């Protein structure tokens, strides 16, 4: 059954149940992946996904139900389940559906040609050749992947909203494994966009170079040091702590930024932007998860908290208007709040100048175990790290298996300089993060 046929059945069922306020959200995707190992295609996969979430308002409370099975029985069942679920809710806050007839920005379509199965296979195999050719230290275990997909979402509600957005993505990944005969090390590089224009050997060489640099890495010495975080490390931290800028989180008492709009919460050099149209992001959005128009806003401006991010529910509860940041992590997830592309704005210094300012310290290239070692509620983090020592103002030997510890809330104030080159490093299905390198005075490092 097509979504259009299913939609008609659901609307019929909703009306029969006496529901006046309801919404259907449909997400579907097709993707193909070729994965090469030891110069051969190890795994090839294709998928056709799709699901519908139905939600309805009963006494101002929103009930949800979803299904991947589009048939008459499911159409009746999700309406009934959503209505039952709404009746079980106890929250005081009112929920809302977006109004139809709003004006939206035009998101330019990505128009590069999507690779077919043969082109994906070719790219994945070329990735293998490039990895093995890059360096004699490269060993079996290296993977190369080429992925292409199309996705589309549709949002229809009883208030006249009828929105649709299509997107496409193509990704090449070069995953290098190197060995010096004693230990192994790995690293990967990701390229997205038109695969016919990706420089596959360059991606492989970069991945191999990074992996090799980590071989024979030392454990950093325990102590308190100035730390330069790479764009990748800053993006990981932002991704982990993005929820502290959500008004939904704040309203629930799970962020310390509740009610602090207008206050200084970060160093002067910190400006944090949420940009739904960030040029390099593959998740540009004209409308948010509720169907409201999106726009670019400063979350932190010169260290001052300008706004939290809102959906309609948090905005109404806190007497604000929505910032168009309603999000759905997947078709069956409840509406929450997320940034689109969260960008730490560039500062005035080159990365070399940051290293010089640090003098003697640690450059943290990557952070691990963020889901465990960082607590978004308390702000505390103690994270596995890898990077380089900074000696006399320059990166020197590689270090790994050490931790950096601190508090995100304090870190925002401890940033003393921001580099001038922003990189998009962390691109999830809902949110992307882009940042330059930053210098932080005095963080605790635990190593040997």
């Amino acid at each position, binding site marked *: 059954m097509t979504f259009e046929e299913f939609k008609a059945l659901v609307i019929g069922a909703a009306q029969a149940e006496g529901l006046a306020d309801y919404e259907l959200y449909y997400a579907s995707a097709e993707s193909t992946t070729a994965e090469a190992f030891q110069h051969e295609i190890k795994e090839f996969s294709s998928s056709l996904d799709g699901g519908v979430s139905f939600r309805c308002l009963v006494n101002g409370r929103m009930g949800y139900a979803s*299904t991947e099975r589009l048939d008459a029985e499911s159409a009746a069942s999700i309406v009934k389940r959503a209505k039952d679920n709404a009746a079980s809710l106890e929250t005081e806050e009112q929920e809302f559906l977006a109004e139809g007839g709003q004006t939206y920005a035009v998101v330019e379509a990505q128009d590069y040609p999507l690779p077919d199965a043969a082109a994906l296979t070719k790219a994945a195999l070329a990735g293998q050749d490039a990895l093995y050719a890059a360096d004699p230290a490269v060993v*079996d275990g290296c993977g190369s992947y080429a992925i292409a997909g199309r996705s589309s979402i549709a949002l229809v509600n009883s208030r006249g909203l009828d929105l649709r957005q299509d997107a496409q993505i193509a990704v090449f990944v070069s995953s290098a494994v190197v060995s010096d005969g004693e230990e192994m090390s790995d690293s990967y590089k990701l390229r997205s966009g038109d695969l016919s224009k990706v420089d596959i050997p360059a991606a492989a060489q970069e991945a191999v170079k990074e992996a090799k640099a980590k071989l024979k890495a030392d454990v950093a010495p325990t102590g308190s040091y100035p730390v330069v975080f790479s764009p990748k490390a800053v993006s990981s931290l932002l991704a982990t702590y993005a929820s502290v800028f959500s008004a939904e989180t704040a309203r629930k008492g799970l962020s310390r930024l509740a009610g602090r709009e207008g206050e200084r919460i970060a160093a002067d050099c910190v400006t944090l932007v949420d940009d739904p149209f960030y040029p390099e992001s593959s998740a540009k959005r004209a409308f948010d998860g509720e169907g409201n128009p999106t726009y670019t806003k400063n979350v932190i401006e010169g260290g001052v908290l300008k706004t939290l991010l809102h959906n309609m529910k948090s905005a109404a509860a806190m007497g604000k208007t929505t910032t168009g940041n309603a999000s759905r992590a997947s078709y069956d997830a409840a509406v929450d709040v997320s940034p689109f592309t969260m960008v730490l704005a560039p500062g005035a210094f080159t990365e070399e100048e940051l290293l010089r300012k640090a003098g003697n310290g640690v450059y943290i290239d990557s952070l691990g175990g963020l889901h465990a070692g960082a607590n978004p509620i308390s702000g505390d983090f103690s994270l596995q790290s890898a990077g380089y020592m900074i000696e006399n103002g320059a990166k020197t030997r590689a270090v790994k298996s050490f*931790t950096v510890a601190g508090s995100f809330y304090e870190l925002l104030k401890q940033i003393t300089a921001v580099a001038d080159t922003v990189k998009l490093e962390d691109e999830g299905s809902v949110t992307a993060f882009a940042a330059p390198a930053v210098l932080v005075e005095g963080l605790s490092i635990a190593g040997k």
Partner: protein
Amino acid sequence: MISKEVCERVLLRAVSTGADYAELFAENTLDHSVHMIAGKIDRIGDACVAGASVRVFKGLRSVMASTVDTTEAGLLRCAEQAAEALGEGTAQIDIVLRERLFGDIHPIRIVPSAVPNGEKIDILKRACFTAADYDKSVTQVTGTLLDVDHNILIATSEGLYTQDRQIRTRLAVTAVAEREGETQTGSCSPGRRMGLEMFETEVDPAAVGREAARQAVVMAGAGYCPAGVMPVAIGNGFGGVIFHEACGHSLEATSVAYGTSQFTGKLGQKIANEKVNAIDDGTMPNAWGSINIDDEGRPAQRNVLIEKGVLKSYMIDKMGGRRMGMEPTGNARRESYAYATTSRMTNTYIDAGDDKNEDILASIELGLYAKEMGGGSVNPATGEFNFAVREGYMIRGGKVCEPVRGASLVGKGSEVIEKIDMVGSDLLPGQGMCGSSSGSIPVNVGQPMIRVSSITVGGR
């Protein structure tokens, strides 16, 4: 779900270009969750996940196609895609399916998907209200009661046609406590491969709430954990995450078969301290990580991974087994039809030893007692792992002293399992969700109290 005859036609199509093995996996899953915050039910999740995948193998090549369209036409299209991607060839095998049942070693009494919201809400409230009332420093409590009714069908070109119903229930409570402007959290989240009878026979919801609140309150009063290398005593239960991360993932064919494991080629060799006996057991009745059959249709097994420090077995799926020249071990798992199956853990634990907990603690002059652990992660290629300490205490002169917050443990798996030099006897499982290439799956970790003679503690 899907008739034997339809499965036969789909598999025939799947092997039409010369595959030496084909598998149809179909599922129909009901995911239900009730969420509570600040004493009110604020969200109910209610999803039906339904779809199928066709996998075909030819030698060491694997192709998978998945779809949400489980009509015969949709499945045939899916099989066609898989066959086409495999290449050009002609059918080499015939398909004759025979239904087999493997029995149910995890009986369910109260099917959660048949219970109305109200009864689940009562259970959740008992847990959350207990947490909220525990202490006045508790400022927020969130709770979730989730249940999964996962129905799978597996048909393979080897003639297998079987189904399994996997029901799981989990209660998770997080408490937030505040003291002098500092916020800390505590959580407790027991789960079983059971229905709601779990709350009659195994888990008291009030105790779950109390435990989450106790942790939050203790940690809200804690100072920062110091940084450095020190001996650590790790408590039982979820403390077993150390073995899961430091060693378990590196024993999965997912990394071993591709040479990206620190333990590739080490069978029969001593890889851990002789105090370490480690087991992966998918057959434990009604345990969170248990299965009747794995997602390739193989009955669950109990596999001794490490015996007295010597590596005895890996955890192997079908394709991993082909690459390694070894039999699968009943560890093939996937989150859903949309993920390609690979080798995963089930219930993995360090078995009880004969040290006494008081001796373990008394043996540490200056170190950390990691009473409750959080999650972690590992890179199997390098063995570098990390995990978070949720509730920690300093040990001084063999005595457990003040609580400390914000600690994490990092190291290299092959080194740390050599340093597990004392193993207690109070073996207990802990529940977690484990993420890997085949998605997020329920697993038990477990251990008695152990001592790690020295490890890097991340603190400040």
